[in-house]
């Protein structure tokens, strides 16, 4: 290699390096979202790893291309006329290689046939379908089958529940309808096919799509037929919601004592009727089957209830299906977060009595009919020096003018929020509870102490109790942030001093 060509080689190397270096610092592109109508055809885990990247099957394009031939171009109908969601050509085929051949046979031969007939057709080479793409996140939104949607379906099926609900008769090995035993699909259908018990996805597509298709063919107003129709988040928001949803009657009690067998703590009067509209659907609380909680969750926990005891089921702090969990998430709402997410909002111990107000022994529970303690908040007290309308906090005024605290206006706004929520009025018990929101760590009801009686000038590092200035700001500005109150700037509460530069 003579030295003449060397500088050329050197130059190429440097340019290559510089170019790559420039590209080096571009961050990895955000993950790609896969539209609802695209099915990522991956092997079931048992069949082992795939040699090529999974095919992203675009259902929408195929439907558009095969519009004239209808669904049965790929899908088959079973003996009862139900449209089977899986590809007909691969139905019933097991084993890795057989499955591969079946898919290739079905797709490629169809593409070749259409290409021969000069019709719009898909790819026939491996790389065209098995395309290497950056990791994708399916944008498929789960279908929230809430009361309104359920009611619209009930109306469409003229209240004939047997249209969708069925029970598996183990003895006769047959599916039939039984009045009073209607359950959510999730009660039996799990995440994967288990013999004749199809997975939730499989079962729901079979019943919903077949019914929608039948109604469409009969010219009646039916539900969506395409993936995006149900699974697209915006389309779901666009579904018409019934203004007033009739109560879904399934033999559930209006009011009952909740008392686990063997429990010694007083029973709780549970207003089932009052709680129904609070959830989006029955499975909000009945997260598995519509049976009562203590059928799976017992005092010491059972295998059916995954070992979760009754106490945990009712009191778990963050589970959406438990009473306390649900109440806690309600307390995190914007109009409640001011106090409840604040520094001193731990519920008082005596709040147990609020629910557990019923009889203690099993006999009494049977004897005494369940009754609810009524929840009524007496009105706000009149303005007085004990309950001032306006406060001027000047104890720390230095860089700013003393701050003006519209005390009555704030209390009125919080009180209105509490009154509006049945949960809040029931649990607050009396109007004075509201004061503990700001006057925390002090007994409720009596005239609450001022901030500076506990908060001194400087913070106490040991007990993490902030100094007075920090106490004011953390309480007021923190609450405004949590409740998205716009006044969060310094001059919103105290005017700047004139001579301040």
């Amino acid at each position, binding site marked *: *290699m*003579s*030295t003449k060509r*060397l500088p050329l080689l*050197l130059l190429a*190397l*440097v340019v*290559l*390096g510089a170019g*790559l*270096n*420039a*590209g*080096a*610092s571009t961050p990895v592109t955000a993950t790609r979202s896969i539209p609802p109508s695209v099915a990522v055809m991956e092997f079931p885990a048992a069949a082992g790893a795939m040699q090529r990247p999974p095919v992203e099957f675009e259902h929408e394009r195929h439907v558009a291309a095969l519009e004239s031939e209808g669904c049965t171009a790929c899908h088959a109908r079973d003996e009862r006329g139900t449209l089977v969601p899986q590809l007909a050509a691969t139905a019933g085929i097991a084993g890795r290689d057989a499955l591969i051949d079946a898919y290739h046979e079905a797709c490629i031969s169809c593409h070749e046939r259409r290409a021969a007939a000069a019709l719009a057709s898909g790819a026939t080479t491996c790389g065209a379908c098995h395309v290497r793409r950056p990791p994708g996140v399916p944008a498929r939104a789960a279908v929230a089958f809430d009361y309104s949607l359920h009611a619209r379906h009930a109306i469409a099926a003229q209240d004939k529940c047997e249209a969708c609900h069925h029970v598996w008769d183990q003895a006769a090995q047959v599916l039939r309808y039984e009045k009073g035993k209607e359950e959510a699909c999730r009660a039996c259908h799990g995440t994967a096919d288990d013999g004749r018990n199809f997975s939730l996805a499989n079962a729901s597509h079979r019943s919903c799509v077949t019914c929608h298709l039948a109604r469409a063919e009969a010219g009646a107003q039916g539900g969506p037929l395409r993936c995006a129709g149900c699974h697209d988040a915006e389309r779901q928001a666009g579904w018409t919601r019934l203004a007033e949803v009739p109560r879904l009657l399934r033999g559930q009690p209006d009011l009952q004592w909740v008392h686990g067998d063997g429990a010694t703590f007083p029973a709780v009067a549970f207003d089932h009727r009052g709680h129904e509209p609070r959830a989006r659907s029955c499975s909000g609380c009945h997260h598995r089957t519509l049976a009562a909680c203590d059928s799976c969750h017992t005092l010491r926990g059972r295998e059916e209830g995954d070992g979760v005891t009754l106490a945990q089921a009712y009191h778990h702090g963050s589970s959406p299906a438990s009473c306390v969990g649900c109440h806690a998430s309600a307390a995190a709402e914007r109009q409640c977060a001011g106090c409840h997410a604040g520094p001193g909002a731990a519920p008082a111990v005596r709040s147990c009595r609020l629910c557990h107000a019923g009889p203690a022994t099993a006999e009494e529970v049977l004897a005494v009919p369940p009754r609810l303690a009524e929840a009524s908040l007496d009105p706000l007290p009149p303005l007085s020096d004990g309950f001032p309308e306006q406060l001027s906090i000047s104890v720390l005024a230095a860089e700013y003018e003393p701050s003006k605290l519209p005390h009555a206006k704030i209390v009125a706004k919080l009180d209105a929020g509490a009154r509006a929520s049945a949960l809040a009025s029931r649990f607050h018990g009396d109007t004075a509870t509201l004061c503990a929101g700001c006057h925390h760590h002090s007994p409720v009801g009596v005239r609450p102490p001022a901030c500076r009686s506990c908060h001194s000038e400087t913070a106490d590092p040991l007990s993490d109790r902030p100094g007075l200035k920090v106490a004011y700001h953390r309480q007021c500005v923190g609450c405004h942030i949590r409740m998205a109150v716009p006044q969060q700037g310094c001059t919103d509460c105290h005017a700047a001093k004139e001579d301040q530069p």
Partner: protein
Amino acid sequence: MSDAAVGAAAQGAGARSILTPFNLVTGLILAGGAVILGLRFTQGLAATTNLTHTYPWGLWIGFDVMSGVALAAGGFVTSSAVYLFGMKEYKPIVRPALLTGFLGYFLVVLGLLADLGRPWRLPYPFIKQAGPTSPLFEVALCVALYLTVLFIESTPAAFEWLGWKKLRKLVGSLTIGLTVLGLILSTMHQSTLGAMYMVTPTKLHALWYSSHIPVHFFVSAVAAGIAMVIVEGMFSHRAFHHQVQISTEHFERINFGLAKAGAVALAVYFAVKVVGLAIEDEWALLATGWGAWFLVELLGFVLLPGLMFAVAYRERRLGLARAAAVITALGIMLNRFNITFVAFNWNLPPAERYLPSWMEIWVTVAFITFAVVAFRWIASRMPIMYEHPEWRGQH
């Protein structure tokens, strides 16, 4: 080349007119450099450099200190080879190599003086208060000592030129001790220059950062030193052809010996780098953009010149050996630039990255020109390229 002719040639150089194109160009560069340094010392670093709080060290540290020290390693490599390991046939190139080393280290100090915030406090680590935990303290100590060692080792030529026999004899007797001291000092600060980057594992890119950086710096310095001797030989042999006593065949034999040493040094350096990758398990990083840039440096500027040296040595092709030497020198500069500001703070967005300002580049070029001019002035007067008749064959 009889001795008389040598003496005539030495005087003859001065007679020609001053305004040769070489002097014009160097004069222009040096003048420009002086103006910029004047600006630097009146307006401060902000006015003349692109240095920021995120990049406190730029081209002056990256080139003059980091690369300058490595390229000036030719001095200790050749002097220890000749005096300590008895390779007598390399004796003729010891003096030019030592002179290059001395001027290189002088360049380092110049670069430091330009880059330091308060250059008049340069001796403070020794006279005011020492910070012994700092690698930079160790580098400062060794560079200062080694500069004096190199100065003393370069004085024989001056004494011969001035005819101070007693002093020349005294320095002659010190040669062995100085060479040993020079080797000790060089080993220490060449490696500790690398140790200076051990304290920033999160800021230097993993491919360039290694817990063995000192070894990387030392081995690459040896390779750079050898390459620099060949490159310097290339220019000085042609420029002072009339002074050179040894036959071109002997000169070529020396160059091929150096090429062989260069091949070995680069092979060792390549091995150390690859071992570094293995120990820190950074194979995956090679696939990234930075990995490509690292490969450009490793394969293009270490493996390639190493193989070129090997082929040049086997096939006896001097041109190839010289080309390899040039690439090695550039490679070491690239490595030091990468470590100092290209792969440093590698995770910052390109907007906050550092690029040397034209003034920094001009001053650096001015420093190099100063070194070349000084070399030319000394070599044309003092017996650097040839042996003074009275002192033939002595240390």
